[in-house]
C-alpha cells in the first residue's frame, strides 16, 4: 500500500500547477504568432485561474470559489464565440492569422 495514497495532496501543489499553467499562457500569448494559438493561450490563463479558485474553495470548504469558476467558464464561452467570429472576420479580410501583420491600428 502506498503510504501516501490516503494523504491529501498539499495546497502548494495545486497552486504551483495553476501558476505554471498561467505563466505558460502568458508566455504563449507573448511569443506565439498565430492568432488561434494566442487565443488558446488566453483560455489557458483563464483555466489556470479557475484551478486556483477551485483549490481555495476546497481548502476553505466554501462554495463561492466554485460559483466563480462557473462565471469564468460562462464568460470564456461567450468570449470564445465572439473571439472566433472576429478571427474568422480578420482572416477573411487579411488572408492571414499572423498577429504581427494584423496592425490596422498602427499610425
Amino acid at each position, binding site marked *: 500500500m502506498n503510504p501516501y495514497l490516503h494523504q491529501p495532496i498539499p495546497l502548494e501543489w495545486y497552486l504551483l500547477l495553476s501558476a505554471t499553467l498561467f505563466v505558460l499562457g502568458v508566455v504563449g500569448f507573448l511569443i506565439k504568432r498565430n492568432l488561434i494559438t494566442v487565443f488558446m493561450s488566453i483560455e489557458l490563463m483563464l483555466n489556470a485561474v479557475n484551478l486556483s479558485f477551485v483549490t481555495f474553495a476546497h481548502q476553505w470548504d466554501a462554495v463561492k470559489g466554485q460559483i466563480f469558476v462557473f462565471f469564468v467558464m460562462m464568460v470564456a464561452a461567450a468570449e470564445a464565440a465572439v473571439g472566433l467570429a472576429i478571427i474568422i472576420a480578420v482572416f477573411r479580410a487579411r488572408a492571414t492569422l499572423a*498577429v504581427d501583420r494584423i*496592425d490596422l491600428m498602427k499610425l
Partner: protein
Amino acid sequence: MKYHLWLIPLLPFAGFLLNGILGARLPKWLVSTIALLAPLASLAVVAVAAMSVFGGASLPYVETCPLGWINAGTLHIGYSFTLDQLSLVMLLVVTGVGFLIHIYSVGYMSHEEGYWRYFSYLNLFLFFMTVLVLAGNALVMFIGWEGVGLASYLLIGFYYKKKSAADAGKKAFIVNRIGDFGFLIAMFLLLANFGTLTFSEIGAQLALNPAWHGGVLTVIALCLMLGAAGKSAQIPLYIWLPDAMEGPTPVSALIHAATMVTAGVYMVSRTHFLFDRSPMALLVVAIIGAATAIFAATIGLVQHDIKRVLAYSTVSQLGYMFLACGVAAYSAAIFHLVTHAFFKALLFLAAGSVIHGMGGEQDLRKMGGLRKKMPITFWTMTMGVIAIAGIWPFAGFFSKDAILYAAFVQGGSGRVLWFVGLVTALLTSFYMFRLWYKTFMGNSRSPEVHPHESPWTMLGPLVVLAALSICGGWIGIERFSAFLAPSVSHRVAEAGSAQLEILLSVVAVATALLGWLVADRFYRAKPGQAAHLAEANPAIYGLVLNKYFVDEIYAALIVKPLLAISRFVLYWVVDIGILGGAAWLLGGTAVFSGAILQRWQSGNLRSYAAWLAAGAAAMLLFVLVPWNAVWPISMDILGKVAGH
C-alpha cells in the same frame, strides 16, 4: 425737498436706448419726438429743482444709489449725485442749450441718412454730460467724462464714410486719452492721500488742515489740469478740437462749443479747493489759459472755413475760462462758461444755418451777401458776434470783463495775464467781424448758389439763443458769484475799486470796437488790403494759416516715433518675437513629444500585451515584496509623500 436727480441723466438714456435699438424701424417724426421729449423732461426736472433753489431750498442736495458700488475695505465709492449751486448752473446750461440744439437738429438733419443714429448719440451725450455734472465723486465724474468723450467720438465720426471725419473722431479720442491719463493719476493720488474721491469730503479734509499747501496737492492739481486740458482743448492738447468740426454742425455747437469742452473748466472749479492750495498749479493754469487764448485767436484770424474760425474761437474762449480759474476767479470762469455757451452755440447754429442755406459750403471765400437772403440768420448771428466781441451790453461783455478785472487786480503776473487777455479780445473782435463781413456783407462770391432761409425748427433756437446772448450777462458777476459762493470761492483781491472796474470796462469795450473798425477797414472799406498785407508778409501769413505747423510738429515728434516703435519694437520684437515665439514653443513641444510618444501606440497586439504583462508584474512586485525589510527608508518616504 426731494428732487429725483437720477431722472436727469436717465431720461436721455432711455431716449438713447429707444432710438438706438428701435430707431431704424420707427418713422422720422417718432424718432424726433422721442429725442426731443427726453431732454425736455430732463430740463423740466432741472427747472423744478432750480425753482425750489431760487425759492430758498437749501443746498447741497446729495443723492446716492442705495445699492452701493465699490466696497473694498475702508474704500467706499457709490453712485452719488450732488446738486449744488455750481452743478445747478451747469445743468441749466447743459439741458437748456442741449434742448434748443435738439430742436435745431430736427431741421438741420432732416435730409441726412442715419437720422435716428444721430439722435440716439445726441441723447447718449446728454446722459453722460449730466452724469459728469451731477457727479458727487471723482469716479462718477470720470464715467461721465469718458462717456462724453465716447459720444463726441461717435458724433465727430458721424459721417463715417468720409475718411477725414473718421480720422478726426479717432484724433479727438486719442488726444483725450492723454488727458484722461492725467485725470486717472490724479484720482489715484487723491485716494492715496485722502482715502476718498468724494469732492465734499476732500474739501472738508483740506479745511481741517489749513496749513497743507503745495507738494502732493500741486501734483494732483497739475494732473487734473492735464485732464482738463485734454477735454477743454488747451495747449498742448487743443489740436483735436478744430478737426472735430468734421461732425455735423449742431454737434459742434452742443459738444464742441457749449457743453462738453467746458467740462474741464467745470472740473477745475469743482476741485478748486485743491488748486487754491497750490499757487504754482494756479499759475500754470493761468499761463496755459492765457497762452491758449492768444495762440488760438491768432490762428482764427486767417482761417477760411467758417466752422474752423469758430473752433479756434472756442479754444481761445476756453483759454479765457482757464485764465479766470488760474487767478482763482472760478465764478467768473463759470459765468463766462454760461454766456459763452449761449453765444457760441448761437454762432455755431447760425453758421450751420448758413452752411445749410449755401448747400453745404463752408468756405468764407465763397460766401458773401447773405444779409438779404437769410435775414433772421443774419440778425441772430450779429447778436452772437457782438456778444463774443464783448461789447456792452451784450452777454460776452459782462463775463469777459469779469475775467479781465479779476486778472488785473491780482497784480504782478496778473497784469501780464490781463494784457494778454486784452490783446486776445482785440483779435477776437477782429476775426469775428471778419467772419461776419465775409459771410453777410458785400456781394455773393458764388452766384451759382441760391441761398435760402432755414426752416423754423432751426430759426427758433437761433432767436432764443440770440435773446440769451443779449440778456445772459445782465445778472452781473456780483450777483452770480454771490449765488455760486457756497460752491466755489471768488477770490478777487481787494485792490480793486469801482472806478478801476469802469475804467477797465471802457478799455475792454474800446478794444473790441477797435477790432471791429480794423475788420471794417479790411473787409468793407478797402477789401484788397487784407490780401495785400498777407502778400507782404508771406512767412508770417503762411505760418499762421498752417496753424503754426503744430500738427506737423506733433506728427514728427510723437506720432511717427510712436508708429515706428509700434511697428518695429512692439510688432516685430514683442508680438512676433516674444509672444509669437512663446506660442510656437508651446505648440512645438506638444508636437515633438507627441511624435516621440506615438511610437508607444504601435498598433502591434503583442507589444500591448507585453506592456500589460509588465504592468501586472510590476503591481505584483509592489504588493508581494516586503519593501520595509528590503529598504527600510522607502516606506517612510512614501508615508511622508502621502502626508502621514
